[in-house]
Every structure is written in structure tokens, then in C-alpha cells.
């Protein structure tokens, strides 16, 4: 693709670019608005769950608010409520822009977005009333997962149709990552639901399939969409081209090749070849991580753009968080470390860093970059963008560091046979209490995000109503008056 031509479009100068943006308006609003609300609600539930470590007795009489229901509900809101719809919205826009064509089947995406959010709502209620499936990251029951699956397929259809209508036939690096992600989710989600929920396999094979699904969703899918987004926006915002197609291709191949085999814990009660294969793959995952780091550094080096807490900051922070959380994954697979870190908070720190530090930050940055173009007006609260960036950075520091460090202490005490179990919980409880601050800061940040998005939505609605009223009040043209 011609870079100059594209960056011109990106500036929103050309008529074509604004037509493309306008075609994405309603689907993207439908995806992003509810996603922002789910993000805030998910973080609020995480905060409530975290209060259990301060006052374990607080919700003793309320089944809905017991820790074991709050945590899966909150985690699923972060992934299914926010990450996937936000990722899909960003993806639709990137496809339309790269294809230099208006979004194909926009109405279907709008309907699908509403089906998706309805599915999340049903799933959330189901977890609260005790109807969860009991598998990590797959807690939503059948009724909800059917809706999610159908909605994903419809949005994917719109994305693929837009991709098929592209004017420039050659593919860009973001294309590879985003297309693979479109293919990935239906496969893993249908497999997990068929083998675990609809016709459950017997015994511990359930756990293996559960780990395979969770890894492919949380590590691979988020990485594909997040990196696809980063590889689109980093060069644009830095005003340069992506460092190297070949490196990006290498990162893509090694990520899907090794990443998909991670996730089976070392000491699992399954035949030894499963964790061993997973262990080798986890170590090799260092290769795509290093490649992404090289691409990242070489792409942004020398860029004379001040990010000032704006989208560029978000995407840079997200990419660094991806590399760091990936390194945490590699470390926790290393045999000596795995024995200590398995069953500790370190794994939770890694997962949350992946979801919140990498994906959520990168997606929020992309949304802030896209929305003003799509709506054709500036953000209502531009100062919130920078404030949210700071809140997220501080919140992540207060969340990830205590959990990771506490997890290491916990693991060392768990591994020492001469210590009672209570020593390991005592070692980690203060760290868990500190992490509450992290959840609070993240929640505040997400409220700023939701405020911006809702204000945009209402501003748009008001403009629509005004236009409608004006149309009603306008005098009829003479040609329309029947004689």
C-alpha cells in the first residue's frame, strides 16, 4: 500500500476517509459504549471481591456477592464484556481503513453488537444466580454462549466482507493478526463449549481442554488483536512505517505456532507429555516476544511525536505491557520457578497484566484515536484521556506488583514443608490488601473512559433528535405538496 496516500487518509483530510469513518459510526458506538460500561462494572466487581481480604465476613449472607461468584463474573466482564467487543470494533474500523472502502454490512454489525451485549448480560446474571459452568474463562452458560458465538460470527462476516472489498490487494501486517483472530475465536469457543458444556468429556480431559481454551483466549487471541492494533497505530502515530514486514511476519508465525501450545500447568494430574509440550512451547514464546520488542523499538525510535498522555502513550504502554506480561508467562513456565509459582497469585498477576495492562490500555488508546474521527467531533472531555492514562498506570502498578511479589513470597512458603499453610496466606494477605488500591484506581480510570464515551453518545443522540425536529418543522418543498 502507498504509505503517503494512507497517512493522508489517516489525517481525516480526504473525503473518502470521512465517508469510511461515517460508515463505521453506528456499529462502533454500539460495540464501544456497552463495552465501556462493562469495563467499569467489571472493575467495580473486582474491587468488591478484593474487599473480601479486608473483611471476609462482609457478604456472608448474600450468595450473589460471595467471592467465588464475584471473581468469575468480574473476570468475564473484563474479557467478554470489554476486551472482545472493543477489539472487534477497532478491528472493523482498521479493516475499513486499510481496505479504503466503507464498512460492508454495517447494520448487521449493529445488530450483532446488541446480541453480544445481551449475551454478556445473560451470562453475568447466570453467574450471580449460580448457573456458571465452573470452567475458568468459560463461566457463561449455554444460553449466553450461543448468543456470543452467533454475534461474533456476524461481526466477523462484516469484517471479512470489508476485507474482501479492499482496493489494495496486498496485505498489511495488521491484516494477518486480525484475520487470524477472527478465525481463532469461533474455533476455540465452539470447541470449549461443545467438549465441556454441551457434551462434556470425561474426567480430567475437561481440565486440559479448559486450559487450552483459556490460554488461546487470554494469551493468543488478546495478543493477536492487541498486536494487530498496535502494528496499525504505532507507525501511524509515530509518523513512520512499521519497522520490517519480515520481522512482523516472523513474530506472527512464532506467536501463533508457540503461543497456542502454552497453558498446561507443570504439575497437572495428567499424562506427563501434556505439560512437557506446553513447557517447551512457553519457553519458545520468548522468540515472538523479542521480535515484537525489536519491531517496537525500531518503529518508535526517533519519532518526534510527543504523546502527552494521548493514544500514542496508550499504545506504547500496551505494547510494553505485552512484552513484560509475556516474560512473566515464560518465567512461570521455567521448571524451577513453576514449582514455586504454581498455585500462587503470580499467575493472577500475569493474567491481569495481560488483560488490563496490555489489551485494555491498547484498546482504550485505539478507541480514543478512532472515536473523534468516526463521530467527526472532538472528545467531550479531552483532559480525561491523560488522567485515565495516569490512573491506569498507577492502578496497574498497585495491582500487578503486589500480586506478583506476594505470589513469589507465597510460593516460597508453600514450597517449604516445615511451614504451616497459614504462613503462606499470612505472607500474601498484606499484598492482597494493597492490590485493592490498584483496583480502585483502575475503576476510576474506567469511569473517565465511560464518561467520555457516554457523553459522545448523548451528544450524537441530541444531534440526531435536533435534525429530526428540524426536518419535521421544515416547510415542505413545493414539489412535495399535492395540489
Amino acid at each position, binding site marked *: 500500500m502507498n504509505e503517503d496516500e494512507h497517512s493522508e487518509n489517516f489525517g481525516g483530510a480526504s473525503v473518502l476517509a470521512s465517508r469510511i469513518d461515517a460508515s463505521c459510526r453506528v456499529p462502533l458506538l454500539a460495540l464501544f459504549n456497552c463495552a465501556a460500561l462493562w469495563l467499569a462494572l467489571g472493575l467495580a466487581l473486582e474491587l468488591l471481591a478484593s474487599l473480601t481480604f479486608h473483611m471476609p465476613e462482609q457478604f456472608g449472607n448474600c450468595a450473589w456477592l460471595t467471592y467465588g461468584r464475584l471473581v468469575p463474573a468480574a473476570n468475564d466482564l473484563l474479557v467478554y464484556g470489554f476486551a472482545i467487543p472493543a477489539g472487534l470494533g477497532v478491528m472493523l474500523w482498521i479493516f475499513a481503513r486499510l481496505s479504503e472502502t466503507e464498512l460492508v454490512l454495517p447494520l448487521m454489525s449493529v445488530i450483532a453488537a446488541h446480541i453480544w451485549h445481551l449475551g454478556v448480560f445473560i451470562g453475568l446474571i447466570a453467574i450471580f444466580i449460580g448457573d456458571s459452568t465452573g470452567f475458568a474463562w468459560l463461566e457463561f452458560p449455554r444460553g449466553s454462549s450461543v448468543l456470543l458465538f452467533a454475534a461474533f460470527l456476524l461481526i466477523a462476516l462484516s469484517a471479512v466482507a470489508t476485507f474482501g472489498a479492499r482496493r489494495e490487494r496486498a496485505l498489511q501486517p495488521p491484516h494477518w493478526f486480525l484475520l487470524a483472530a477472527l478465525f481463532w475465536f469461533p474455533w476455540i469457543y465452539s470447541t470449549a463449549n461443545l467438549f465441556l458444556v454441551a457434551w462434556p468429556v470425561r474426567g480430567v480431559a475437561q481440565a486440559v481442554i479448559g486450559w487450552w481454551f483459556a490460554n488461546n483466549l487470554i494469551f493468543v487471541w488478546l495478543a493477536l488483536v492487541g498486536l494487530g492494533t498496535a502494528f496499525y497505530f504505532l507507525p501511524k502515530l509515530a509518523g513512520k512505517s512499521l519497522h520490517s514486514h519480515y520481522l512482523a511476519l516472523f513474530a506472527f508465525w512464532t506467536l501463533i505456532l508457540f503461543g*497456542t501450545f502454552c497453558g498446561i500447568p507443570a504439575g497437572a494430574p495428567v499424562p506427563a507429555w501434556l505439560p512437557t509440550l506446553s513447557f517447551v512451547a512457553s519457553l519458545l514464546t520468548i522468540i515472538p516476544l523479542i521480535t515484537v520488542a525489536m519491531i517496537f523499538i525500531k518503529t518508535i525510535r526517533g519519532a518526534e511525536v510527543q504523546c502527552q498522555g494521548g493514544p500514542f502513550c496508550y499504545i506504547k504502554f500496551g505494547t510494553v505491557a505485552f512484552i513484560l506480561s509475556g516474560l512473566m508467562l515464560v518465567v512461570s513456565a521455567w521448571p524451577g520457578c513453576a514449582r514455586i509459582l504454581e498455585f500462587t497469585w503470580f499467575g493472577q498477576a500475569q493474567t491481569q497484566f495481560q488483560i488490563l495492562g496490555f489489551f485494555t490500555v491498547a484498546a482504550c488508546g485505539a478507541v480514543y484515536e478512532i472515536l473523534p474521527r468516526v463521530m467527526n467531533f472532538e472528545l467531550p472531555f479531552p483532559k480525561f484521556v491523560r488522567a485515565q492514562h495516569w490512573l491506569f498506570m498507577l492502578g496497574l502498578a498497585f495491582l500487578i506488583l503486589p500480586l506478583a511479589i506476594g505470589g513469589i513470597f507465597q510460593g516460597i512458603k508453600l514450597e517449604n514443608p516445615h511451614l504451616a499453610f497459614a504462613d503462606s496466606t499470612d505472607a500474601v494477605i498484606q499484598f492482597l490488601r494493597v492490590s485493592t488500591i490498584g483496583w480502585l484506581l483502575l475503576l476510576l480510570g474506567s469511569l473517565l473512559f465511560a464518561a467520555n464515551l457516554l457523553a459522545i453518545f448523548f451528544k450524537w443522540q441530541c444531534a440526531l433528535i435536533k435534525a429530526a425536529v428540524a426536518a419535521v418543522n421544515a416547510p415542505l418543498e413545493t414539489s412535495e405538496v399535492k395540489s
Partner: protein
Amino acid sequence: MKSGFRIFIAAFVTLGASWCGFVLAPASQLGTEKQTAVLNSSDIYPNQRPGDATLGLQVYRKDGCAACHTTQVQQSGFACDVVLTSAGKNSVAVKNLVSKLKLSGLTKDEADSAASQITAAGGKTETHIFATGADISRGWGIRRSVAEDFLWDDPVQLGSIRVGPDLANVGARLANDNWQLLHLYSPQSVVKNSAMPPFRFLFETRKIVGAPSPDALNLPKKLAASAGYEIVPTDDAKNLVAYLLSLRADVPLYDAPFTPAQTSTNAPATKK
């Protein structure tokens, strides 16, 4: 890459490979597993859990117990003890030999060589094998958890984090249903500084009509219901406790062998 079709092939091949490895193979290898024989015994393992325990697993799932508890014990390895069962005719020489040899905490090879030396001197020995590791010495189990332990469970609730202790053998370790009920109602009243939230919603407070219920919890004064009322467990609470008490993986199997406690003096299986 020039076309979307190649991306499709790339994703299909890589994800398909991991699907074959981590979905198809476990589903056919582990998913068709049957009960196995208990080592040195004619019993088979595992037996299906009793009906109330099967229902209890659903309470365990509903309330997300796996968010804080694992049900999988790990071990770092094995160790062997050589036990002299009969000194034979030349008992002085055998006893001298035994006093010189190291006989506990041996590897399999060391145990075999010690046993053959004693046998050569005319004594008779038995080799006892036991699992080692932090979980084992903490009393969480006699051996590591293996795939067979979860044969009847649906959903399998292995758990991934130990906010609370492992429960793989809680039925052997804390086999007292009153203690379990009390612990669910008020964890802090039986375990000091416990971070576990109470599950009061699994109990109901009701007016005593006629004689008090035999199920009523015997609570300390601070927690007891007001006069004329009693706190009784609901069916969910009873089923959950039945499930917890059914959690015991304490028979030797081919892939997780150990010498059962009644013949061994060293195995940590001795109940405290």
C-alpha cells in the same frame, strides 16, 4: 503474505495442531479412561461418589470454591525405606549389618542394594515406598493426584490457586461433618485469621417448633441465634459437606504407588 487464504492456512495449521494435541488426544486418551485396580488389591478405583456428594459438587461449582481452593496434590518424588522383617538364623551378623546401613529415605536403587545385602546375610526385608514433597509433608495427601481421581466428576474442579488449603484429601484430613458445617457457617470461629468468607446463605435461621432440630448448629454464644431460634444447614450445605467428605484420594495406584499405612511405620499417612 499476499492473500487472506494464506493467513487462513497458517492459522488453521497452528491452531489445528494444538487442537489435536490438547483437545483430541486428551479427549480420546483421558476421556475414555476406566476404573483401575488398586495396587496389590482386588478393589477397583475410583467408585462413584454418593448421590449427595455428587449434588455437593454442583454447590462447589455454583459458589466458585475453585476460585480459592485446588483439589490436586503434588509430590516431588519417591523415597524408600527398607524394613527388616526377620533376622533369620545369623541374627547377630544381620543386626550388625543393619545398624551400619542407611535404611530410610533411600532411592529405589539404594533400597534394592541394601535389601540384597541383608538378604545375602540371611535376613528378610520389605521395601516400603512413599511419596515426598511439601504437599505430602503438610498432610494434604499420601500421594500425588492423578487423572483417575477425577473420573466421575463433572465439572472437574482442579482449581489453579491456593488462597485456601488444598482439598484433594479434605475428607480424610477433616472427616467431621459438624466441624465442616461450622467452618462453612463461620470460618473464623474454627480457624483463626482465616480469609475465607462465611457461607451463611447456605444455612437458615428458623423458629424452634417443638423439639430442636438434630441438625441445628452448635454455635459459640457470640454467633448463636437468639432464644427460640436455631440455625440449620440447608440441603445445599449438607450436600457440599458430603462432597468435601468424599474427597479422599488415598489408595495406591500403578501410576502413583505407595505402601499403605497399616504395614508401614514411615509413611506420613499416619493420622494425626
